[in-house]
């Protein structure tokens, strides 16, 4: 937990540092050449599952792609979509299994301001928001209920339990043009589930696109993209 707190504090400091540094550059350079408002579409493919699936001992997996538009190199509307799942057996032998599609829609804003005399760059430092959605089914199996006094034992299996989860994300990331039209970069995201579960309500351990179903979670994507 201490690591999580350190990470949150570091992330906030980083975000405020970037925003304040950005805010100090207030001089607006006059555009001498008119540019089109639409600057292209970038298709991103998330490479992080290569690492995160291994880190989770193959209990969870999540594959994601995104299409992001460049509007005036300031606004970056984005649609993200993917397929994720989990297959876990807890130490008490309770099994959880799910898989399903998820989608996110949102927008990023460029945090980089071009200095007057600087060489033009296509690299991006972005911050933005997402609204995520996943409709899926899950299995919760091998729940053993015992009562030592009445000498009762029963095993419960809940199959194809439906769930619809909506969540909100705050994201920050970078994209660097490593060769012409090919971009790579990170996105860090903090996810917060919308709506609260009732006490005792059955909830999925893992939500496609959201992750482990705590009230909030962190995620990291490492993407390679092509700008059309």
């Amino acid at each position, binding site marked *: 937990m201490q690591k999580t707190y350190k990470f949150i504090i570091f992330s906030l400091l980083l975000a405020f540092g970037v925003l304040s540094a950005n805010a100090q550059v207030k001089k607006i350079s006059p555009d001498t050449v008119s540019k089109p408002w639409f600057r292209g579409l970038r298709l991103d493919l998330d490479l992080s599952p290569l690492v995160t699936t291994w880190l989770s001992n193959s209990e969870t997996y999540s594959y994601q792609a995104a299409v992001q538009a460049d509007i005036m190199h300031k606004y970056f509307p984005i649609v993200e979509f993917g397929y994720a799942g989990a297959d876990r057996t807890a130490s008490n032998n309770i099994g959880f299994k799910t898989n399903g599609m998820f989608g996110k829609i949102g927008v990023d804003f460029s945090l980089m301001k071009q200095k007057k005399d600087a060489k033009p760059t296509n690299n991006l430092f972005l911050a933005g928001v997402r609204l995520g959605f996943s409709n899926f089914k899950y299995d*919760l199996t091998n729940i053993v209920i015992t009562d030592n006094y*009445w000498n009762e034992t029963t095993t419960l299996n809940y199959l194809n339990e439906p769930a619809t989860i909506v969540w909100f994300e705050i994201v920050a990331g970078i994209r660097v043009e490593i060769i012409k039209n090919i971009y790579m970069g990170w996105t860090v995201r903090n996810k917060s589930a919308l709506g609260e579960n009732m006490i005792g309500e059955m909830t999925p351990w893992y939500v496609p696109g959201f992750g482990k179903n705590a009230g909030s979670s962190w995620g990291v994507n490492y993407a390679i993209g092509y700008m059309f």
Partner: protein
Amino acid sequence: MKLINKIYIFLTAMIFTACTSSDECREETDVYMRTGFYTKTISPTTNKYSTTSLSIDSLWVNGLGIDSFLYRNKKSIKTIQVPLKKTEMQSDFIVRFNDITDTISVFYQNNDRYYLSMECGCIVVHKVDEVVSTNHFIDSISIINRDINTADAENIQIYHF
């Protein structure tokens, strides 16, 4: 580019310092019907009944058909907590108050979808419909809280006048 390099290093380090989660159940899983003993006394001045807690000198409790006792000659006891059957909708208890024995039958509905967590699984909670008893020591029974779960709340009150 220096800032970008720093972010790369930070994020890479973050992945390898991922938190480990505990796999133990740390939540309350015991579900008991909590019962209090009471008596009603009439006030000579106001002529109104008032309810006071009743301490039983010696109490024995066991489930009908079960040899082992939940309470065995327990002295000076005011409350008890007893488990209900999780796969049936009726539980019967033999309760011996000092030397007087009563049988209490509890009728209820079970909910086996009360989910705690992946580590703890589900527990069976109950909703009490009715409680009946013989009336050798017991005069009446009131249902105070029909929901029987892990909460530390009194469910029924047993009255002896």
